[in-house]
């Protein structure tokens, strides 16, 4: 955790801050989702409470908190009440391993803008987020309702199927950068495009050195699979309203339902963050390296602390811009595409995305072997 009390305290506060950041982003995302969907569907959306309807979030939160705490008569209480709480855990734990900016150096201390730096960040994130299937199963079983159970079975089948394509699509990226560490992966994507092939160095002045230019197919498969993992349209079979009411959270209301919501948005945020780190240079600024930014900051100030703070803030801003863009893509897609049929969903997962991801892995391994 740290060497002395100050460092330990800051690191503990950092963990809490990252959790709060994730939870506090949810109401804003809900607002963006509702206003965005209204914009896409040529409606108004919530615009009565506060400026632009922004206080609607606050009103909603109060409403959720004051609703009756309801459980179905035949529900299995421990599972029914545990499921929404467990829904928060996987996304939160995984989000703690996302590096959001370059480390901050203040007077001999180095603080990472990241909950916890793990050498095998990808494995950890995949492992923790794969536990999300349990919350759905617990909710579906604990509700003692047929709609919930059917929704839970569908959702968990979908999550398991797409986890394979998701995991395989990352293998190409891991082979390319030769590391499980997210920070090293971002460091490998700085500056303009340049790579070594057959002893020559190929460079381009116009394309940033991002993963998507090496692994375009993996990027598409990964992004599609993250939609399925977070149970969002066009993959939200788990809550097909026309068939099974609201799926696994049919029997949930009030704050318990809100917690499932936070879990879903947490997975969305995790998906966007991973998409950025694997394929869009993480917190890096396109065409520019971290050292360039540090030199530019050195021109503005003399003190090392100020330079470090400026560098960290600039990269944090870069991360946030990309992050928000991909969150918007998540919402955009949701309100643009219709839902898949169940057999189409399974065909896409097992017969299309899995073989293509496998082919991509083999091709990447072959090319890397031949070139080096």
């Amino acid at each position, binding site marked *: 955790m740290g060497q002395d009390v100050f460092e330990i305290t800051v690191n503990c506060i950092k963990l809490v801050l990252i959790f709060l950041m994730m939870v506090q982003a949810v109401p804003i995302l809900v607002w963006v989702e509702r206003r965005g969907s209204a914009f896409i569907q040529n409606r108004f959306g919530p615009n009565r409470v506060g400026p632009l309807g922004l206080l609607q979030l606050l009103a909603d939160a109060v409403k959720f908190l004051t609703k009756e705490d309801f459980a179905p008569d035949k529900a299995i209480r421990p599972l029914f009440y545990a499921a929404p709480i467990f829904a928060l855990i996987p996304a939160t734990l995984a989000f703690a391993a996302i590096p959001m900016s370059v480390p901050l150096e203040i007077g001999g201390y180095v603080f990472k803008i990241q909950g916890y730096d*793990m050498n095998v960040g990808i494995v950890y994130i995949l492992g923790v987020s794969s536990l999300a299937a349990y919350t759905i*199963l617990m909710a579906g079983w604990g509700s003692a309702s047929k709609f919930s159970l059917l929704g839970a079975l569908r959702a968990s089948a979908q999550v398991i199927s797409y986890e394979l394509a998701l995991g395989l699509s990352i293998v190409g990226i891991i082979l390319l950068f030769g590391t499980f560490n997210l920070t090293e992966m971002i460091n490998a994507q700085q500056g303009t495009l340049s790579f070594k092939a057959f002893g020559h160095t190929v460079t381009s002045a116009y394309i940033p050195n991002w993963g998507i230019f090496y692994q375009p197919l993996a990027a598409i498969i990964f992004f599609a699979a993250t939609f399925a993992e977070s149970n969002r349209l066009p993959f939200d079979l788990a809550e097909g309203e026309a068939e099974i009411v609201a799926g696994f959270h049919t029997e949930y209301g009030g704050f318990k339902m809100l917690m499932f919501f936070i879990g879903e948005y947490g997975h969305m945020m995790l998906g966007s963050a991973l998409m950025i780190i694997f394929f869009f240079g993480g917190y890096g600024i396109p065409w520019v390296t971290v050292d360039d930014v540090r030199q530019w900051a050195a021109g503005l100030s003399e003190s090392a602390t100020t330079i470090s703070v400026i560098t960290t803030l600039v990269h944090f801003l870069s991360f946030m811009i990309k992050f928000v863009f991909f969150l918007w893509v998540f919402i955009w897609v949701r309100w643009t595409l219709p839902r898949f049929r169940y057999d189409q969903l399974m065909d896409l997962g097992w017969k299309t995305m899995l073989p293509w991801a496998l082919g991509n892995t083999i091709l990447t391994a072959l090319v890397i072997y031949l070139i080096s």
Partner: protein
Amino acid sequence: MTPDVFLFWFLALLIIGSGLAVLLFTNPIYSALSLAMTMVGVAAIFITLHAYFIAGVQLIVYAGAVMVLFVMVLMLFDIKAEIQAFSSGKISGAIKLISVGLLSGLIVGGIIMGQKSFVGELSKDAVQVAEAQKVKKSTSPDAATKELGMVLFSKHIFGFEALGVLLTVIAVGAVALARSRGGTHHAK
């Protein structure tokens, strides 16, 4: 009590508790969920030992994939009939006892053989090399994984294989439950 010791005892009790719960619950769903809890606890123990890669793989493979499938399949059954099939019948009870005895014998044998280091000369060297490397305390994930593989497939090969058998038993049991009387496929 240092944090490490506290974490170890907390996790050890959690694992033993949930492991017992797997056996003592009569409802297969609760058993499966407890087994998932055990897997997560073991992963946490790996993290306290700084074996992050093994912890992650443990979560992905066992907790995230295998157990989710079991829980999902179990939910498709008529569990009320299952509870009865689980806890009645002299012959099936005897078979259960015998299989428990066989399995525990297998595991105990595996541990004893592992301690005797009942391995060939070649792999004995591998064990020594691996343990020498372990002292160096390397931090790179590749090296740690390699060392673990060395120890696992030479010194603890019997325990490892016994665990493999245990997992096969679980898989066969889950399928047997699906096909037995009282499952979704009623004998007509």
